């Protein structure tokens, strides 16, 4: 389940907190997204969006962790050809 996509907040309309919405860019296409569940979100944050609602603010530091792990794995690895 749960198709949710990261998009960048480009503007926020600060109305009633339940209907706080933002214009979010997904590769240049903009959708109005409800930000009620991410009160900490700011402009330029990336939010994970599902059915028009932001469900989390993407943690950019953690986002790099996948690649840090890979670097560590490479450091442990003897040189060998990657599987085609």
């Amino acid at each position: 389940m749960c198709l949710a996509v990261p998009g960048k907040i480009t503007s926020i309309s600060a109305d009633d907190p339940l209907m706080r919405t933002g214009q979010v860019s997904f590769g240049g296409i903009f959708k109005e997204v409800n930000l009620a569940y991410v009160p900490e979100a700011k402009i330029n944050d990336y939010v994970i969006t599902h059915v028009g609602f932001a469900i989390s603010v993407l943690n950019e530091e953690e986002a790099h962790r996948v690649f840090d792990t890979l670097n560590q794995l490479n450091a442990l690895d003897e040189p060998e050809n990657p599987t085609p």
Partner: protein
Amino acid sequence: MNKKEGNISVDTFSCPLPINSSSLITLAHGGGGKLTQQLIEQLFRPAFNNPELETQHDGAVFEIPPAKLAFTTDSYVVRPLIFPGGNIGNLAVNGTVNDLAMCGARPLYLTAAFILEEGLPVETLWTIVQSMKKSADHAGVNIVTGDTKVVDKGKGDGIFINTSGVGVIEHNLTIHPKSIQPGDVVLLSGDIGRHGIAIMAVREGLGFQSQIESDCAAVSNLVQSLIDADIEIHCMRDLTRGGLATALIEMAQTSKVSINITETEIPVREDVKGACEILGLDPLYVANEGQFVAFVKADHAKHALDVMQKNQLGGPAKIIGTVKEAPQETVILKTKIGTLRMLDMLSGEQLPRIC
């Protein structure tokens, strides 16, 4: 409003019907009497404006040099009638022109038959007809004969259009699925998915603020540049409903070959990608209206790419794959992560998903 082709705004044309006429299409407009005549004389004929139409005969009569002909027909039922980058009218003209181009023919003449729904604003019809004329001019074709019927309100969808087209083949290539051979290279004329997303953007419930316009365009000029450059084209197919994947699967089945393509070579604009991501759509299956694949002899591929990329429409063109010997008539995609998977035909229209 479609302002794309020729930088002429349709806003500058005022509707030519007399002011005291009804502003909506009525059943009487399809009755064959005075109102039908008025529609033809004051809307269709001035819009399409060419010598063949002036004869006011039941059919168009014209001379063609001794040559092979290509002949095609298509019907158009798009919703909404007017969408970012086009409308049902120029979709119809470009679609039929492109089908002729895919046969390697130079398009010459088109027919246009309209089924109008009672209650359609005449202004809408005028916009669409003007747009058809612009597209026809751009493609170098004349709309030489046509028909109009009107159906009861609720029995149509605003407008249905059927266009047939005839073109002439002025070279010795046999551009046909049976000409495709193992070793042929597959070229794609440009980025995919724009038309389908442009339509989705204006559908109720799926709206997003987007600058994406349909890629609706005639590719005949681009094809002609390939023919003029003596590229040995074995086959071509324009991408419409079902997108790139469906077109390739159909080719593989018809030609009984296997086609290998590489996902990283397929151009998709970032905003189209974004829209596909949020709607859960695969761009490979999203509709196009101004792109085609060409199967060319392997040692002509580089030159073909060069010719396409130099053309106004073909800038984003890429080589996306090759044809292999069957045993299976399959399309195999090398994914972004380097694994292989077979592309399958969709059973119906791709629907937006949340899961």
